[in-house]
């Protein structure tokens, strides 16, 4: 009896000891699809920075998937220390559905908790055979357009709203005309993939479509991976400012006692080095000094903000993408 008790305590000591001594921290960053390459680079940089600053070893795991799906996984109990998602609406749900973060989460970090931005551009085939220069060319009959389904893809919602914003501006804010315009656009769509990467595959690998509406970073990446001799990036006269947002998941970091390192992880995204890494991965930096340095890589384009044109994500989601919204109406007429 005594002996077995001794064994148990020995075992317990063995199990407890490592956590008590060395500060080996793990973080889980739950992100969306196209940030794979960005966070691969950033995680290494942050681990180095944190080691130098505190002596602790931090290893960061990243999980990628459709933005909405990832938010749902966190709500359903995935222990994410930080969430870095495609749009504020998905992060909002962490408060709305799970009460995992406070209501005013977006005020906690600079720039509305969006450490980098992006926009929507066109990817066309080499030589631009259909002469696509702006949104008006995309809705012309005979042009085949590839975009994912806005009901299932965060990126596709940005596409949809960018087209809508362009039509609004062109027609003096006439909502009916805007709907007609977007309706015409979707008439030209032969396949609706469920996610941004799927749409890129359809366009690039299957050879379907004349133009792909894509995240700017995704378009740059496709061009880099597949060679500039195959595709060209076309920047429309007006597009939307996409702000992917980040947050610490309070319930999780309090439970796992990782708040300090998780917060530092997100704050470091705003530092010079973090911004450099974002820019190298084709996200538009927000820090002026870095933005200036990479000025040439990002074409100038007039960008509208979702809060100004659509009154924020909650409203845009309800008007356009919820069941019975404008997107459903386009297909049910």
């Amino acid at each position, binding site marked *: 009896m005594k002996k077995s008790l001794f064994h148990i305590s020995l075992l317990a000591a063995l199990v407890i000891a490592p956590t008590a001594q060395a500060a080996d921290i793990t973080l889980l960053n739950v992100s969306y699809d196209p940030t794979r390459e960005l966070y691969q680079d950033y995680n290494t940089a942050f681990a180095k920075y944190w080691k130098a600053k505190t002596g602790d070893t931090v290893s960061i795991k990243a999980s990628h998937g459709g933005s909405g799906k990832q938010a749902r996984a966190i709500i359903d109990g995935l222990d994410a220390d930080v969430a870095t998602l495609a749009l504020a609406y998905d992060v909002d749900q962490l408060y709305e*559905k799970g009460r995992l973060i406070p209501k005013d989460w977006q005020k906690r970090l600079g720039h509305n908790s969006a450490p980098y931005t992006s926009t929507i551009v066109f990817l066309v085939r080499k030589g631009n055979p259909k002469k696509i220069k702006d949104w008006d060319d995309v809705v012309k009959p005979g042009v085949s357009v590839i975009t994912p*389904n806005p009901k*299932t893809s965060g990126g596709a919602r940005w596409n949809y709203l960018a087209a809508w914003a362009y039509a609004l501006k062109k027609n003096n804010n006439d909502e009916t005309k805007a709907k007609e315009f977007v309706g015409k656009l979707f008439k030209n769509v032969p396949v*609706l993939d469920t996610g941004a990467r799927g749409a890129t595959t359809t366009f690039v690998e299957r050879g379907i479509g004349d133009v792909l509406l894509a995240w700017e970073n995704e378009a740059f990446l496709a061009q880099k991976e597949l060679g500039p001799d195959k595709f060209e990036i076309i920047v429309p006269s007006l597009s939307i400012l996409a702000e992917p947002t980040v947050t610490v998941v309070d319930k999780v970091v309090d439970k796992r006692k990782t708040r300090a390192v998780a917060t530092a992880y997100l704050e470091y995204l705003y530092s010079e080095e973090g911004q450099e890494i974002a820019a190298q991965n084709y996200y538009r930096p927000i820090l002026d000094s870095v933005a200036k340095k990479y000025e040439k890589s990002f074409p100038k384009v007039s960008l509208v903000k979702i809060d100004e044109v659509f009154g924020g994500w909650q409203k845009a989601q309800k008007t356009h993408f919820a069941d019975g919204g404008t997107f459903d109406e386009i*297909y*049910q007429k």
Partner: protein
Amino acid sequence: MSKKHNNVLPGFNLSLGFTIFYLSLIVLIPLSAAFIKTSTLSLHEFWVAVASPRVVASYKLTFGASLIGASINALFGLLTAWVLTRYTFPGKRIIDALVDLPFALPTAVAGIALTAIYAPNGWIGSLLAPHGIKVAFTPIGIVIALTFIGLPFVVRTVQPILEDLEAETEEAAASLGANRWQTFTKIIFPAIAPALLTGFSLAFARAIGEYGSVIFIAGNMPMVSEITPLIIITKLEQYDYAGATAVAVVMLVISFILLLGINGLQWWNSRRNSRAI
């Protein structure tokens, strides 16, 4: 009591109890969760969720394509099973093993492979495209994917019955003056019909729930090529848990009624046959 005595094997109560417990744990409790989640909706909300035109179009597509897929499988699965049991030829074992492949393959892999082949720039797609036939990204593509994943069900249920059905019975029929067609319709078909029906209903049920392989080849256009499982995913994507489970419940009920009907048909068939003997 008397019933108990009639059982030759011991442990009826224990095994029945275990069966019910096991079925509850694995099947009934998860399914009832769907019904409970749905009950948070009012009747009107439920109706809006399950009967909007987009959702109704998806029911038609899912059940229609599944039915066609399962029917194709019933025909060609029977043929495959027949060839595999009645003839010997080089490479037979390999073909036999190939039949199971759709079982083992991750459905997403099947979907991507089929799409690559049937897309307008794929091997088969590029041959069909000049004739104006589009397969990938249309309902035809969905039928092909569902046929692919359902094949093993029919072959594997019919094969053992055919193996048991000795070739002598066919010879006997022939020696009694039956022609080939009569031998098939009067002797072979009644014997394998129940198994064929089982295989058909399994393939059908599998096709209704299929998501992974279809999603790549479907094109997912609302009202045209959007399957019901995608509608459910779409609703989840909008954090509409109740709406998603409402559609799931409708699917469950329709599937259950259909499978019950097929089972009933089988029961009626076996009774008719046993009376004939």
